[in-house]
């Protein structure tokens, strides 16, 4: 069974304007992807594309005015979005874990890290304090934290950025989840530390066979640590597939432009890159959301583009892509 299958997920921000008119920001517009156990999926896109919102939507962590207005998120066949709250609560932190951005602000500053690890374990499992402590020490050790027994007593402020990120990953793994979602796990860390953290994540997936989704804006991370990738633009996945396929033959014009903008492919003095602020989610154009920037756009782009299968699981949502 597919570990995670997200089907046509729609999330809107629904609020009232000053003149009491209802305003709808269409932040997610039909996000669909699948993630198999033992694989790493990279969800990439620029600011405002809806990467983090995809994670919070499917984990049921949205707060008003954001609301899921359509779609399904099947975790091992069960729809997370249709489940009663109590059942989702039992899954979250146990079978599905989220490693959020900014490690320093995501740890409880007034609790020693050992107690935080023990607390999350005992919230989901009937184990003794001593057993939970043993597991916590073991977990810190497996993440390469030196002198783990002593580190259990450390306060969050005493940790460097890399250490804090490891502790957050330890928290996410305490209950041996089957799905791990990591939102920008290495943003803000130095490159040598980034490599250590990503190595850890990859070893974990290879060793335990869990599925992982890495949300990132860094195509280098995707290129070297992910098996599959999904490219987001304006709340929809415009292209997805095996990493080598997508990099080798980027087919959606947005993906081609994005990959062409990486320092490795950029030719200074060559043709100029198309770039700009994220599109206005209150006034997305009909049809393809990228058509007002797309150099290849034509009249047919006002119609909703089809998902074109390019073989080997490589899919692009564009009128211009020939199958």
């Amino acid at each position, binding site marked *: 069974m597919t570990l995670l299958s997200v089907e046509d997920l729609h999330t809107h921000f629904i609020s009232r304007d000053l003149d009491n008119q209802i305003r709808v920001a269409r932040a997610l517009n039909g996000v669909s992807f699948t993630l198999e156990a033992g694989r790493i999926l990279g969800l990439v896109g620029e600011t405002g594309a809806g990467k983090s919102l995809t994670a919070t939507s499917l984990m049921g962590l949205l707060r008003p005015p954001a609301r899921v207005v359509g779609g399904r998120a099947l975790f091992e066949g069960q729809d997370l979005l249709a489940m009663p709250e109590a059942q989702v609560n039992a899954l979250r932190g146990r079978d599905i874990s989220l490693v959020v951005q900014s490690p320093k602000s995501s740890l409880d500053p007034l609790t020693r890290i050992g107690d935080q690890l023990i607390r999350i374990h005992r919230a989901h499992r009937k184990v003794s304090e001593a057993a939970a402590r043993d597991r916590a020490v073991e977990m810190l050790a497996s993440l390469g934290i030196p002198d783990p027994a002593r580190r259990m007593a450390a306060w969050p402020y005493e940790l460097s950025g890399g250490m804090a990120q490891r502790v957050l990953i330890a928290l996410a793994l305490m209950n041996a989840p089957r799905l791990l979602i990591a939102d920008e796990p290495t943003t803000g860390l130095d490159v040598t530390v980034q490599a250590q953290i990503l190595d850890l994540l990859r070893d974990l997936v290879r060793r335990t066979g869990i599925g992982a989704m890495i949300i990132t804006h860094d195509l*280098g991370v*995707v290129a070297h640590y992910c098996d599959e990738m999904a490219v987001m633009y304006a709340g929809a996945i415009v292209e997805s597939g095996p*990493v080598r396929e997508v990099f080798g033959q980027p087919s959606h014009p947005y993906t081609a432009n994005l990959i062409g903008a990486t*320092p490795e492919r*950029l030719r200074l*003095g060559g043709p100029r890159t198309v*770039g700009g602020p994220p599109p206005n989610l209150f006034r997305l154009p009909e049809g393809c959301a990228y058509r007002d920037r797309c150099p290849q756009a034509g009249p047919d782009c006002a119609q909703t583009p089809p998902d074109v299968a390019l073989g080997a699981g490589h899919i692009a949502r564009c009128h211009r892509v020939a199958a």
Partner: protein
Amino acid sequence: MTPILQVENLQKHFPAQGGRTVHAVNGVSFSINPGETLGVVGESGSGKSTIGRAVIRLLKPTAGRIRFQGRDITTLPESACRPLRAEMQMVFQDPWSALNPRIRIGELIAEPLLLHTKLSRSERRDRAEQLARRVRLTTELLTRYPSELSGGQLQRVCIARAIATQPKLIVLDEPTSSLDLSVRAGILELLAELKAETGVAMMFISHDLGTVKLISDRIMVLYLGGVVEYAPAAKVFADPAHPYSQALISAHLPADPEAVLRRHVLEGEIPSPIALPPGCHFASRCPVAVPDCRATAPELRAVHGDTAHQAACLRIAEGANRIPEVADG
């Protein structure tokens, strides 16, 4: 050819709690030639930004010598620095906080002209329009406020301000780090054009190795406030000599799944700049360190007789500077 900027043995210390001292920059020497872009790379705490600010005298150096166009500006009083800044400009990382939110874009771009030239109001306005067009901003933005522009547009405003007085040197401190990939590409393209057109020298400070490789002529690699390697950009990436450069460059992830990674893993954490270890500052994490490394601080030396390529490592002379590779998972 006289270099635009010559820095000798620059040191900058900051006071820390309890009467201690943060050794942010410890004896850095380098030069930038006209039209040259020097990339400065290193991880957090390596002193990159401190050096950038010291060379244009936003910070007063603790020791050392800074020459700008041959003139010693190390101890120039603040009043004498001001006119100098028409010729040396800076672009900061965060364009949202670098611009006064209550001044319109047109006036922001014209501001350096007001400070440094005798142009009339209408001449300044014309010149601001030219500058806006040069950095590819539509002139209708000139009447807007910074909050109405995107990050990429604001960074273009900062660049327009920096080139307004036709400086000889621009220090760019992480100018693209807070921008999205496609926006970043546009800024890099603009910088390359400006360099080709005006021959302005640049000091490009960044932790993003891919960007630095693309835009720099030479690269200076820093570790704990000291230069560990100083070489032409291609050389640093193809054949890094210092063990730290090797580890740093191997940790860089090019956005290309076909690129083969040569992985080196560093143990331990960067020492505190308050209590610097004696000898080579990298010795505590260096896989090829010998007792000598902890005793004497190595100097920058030509690598195998190549004076363009310099590195500060004792073990290069004996050919023992290669750190072991780890198989890529």
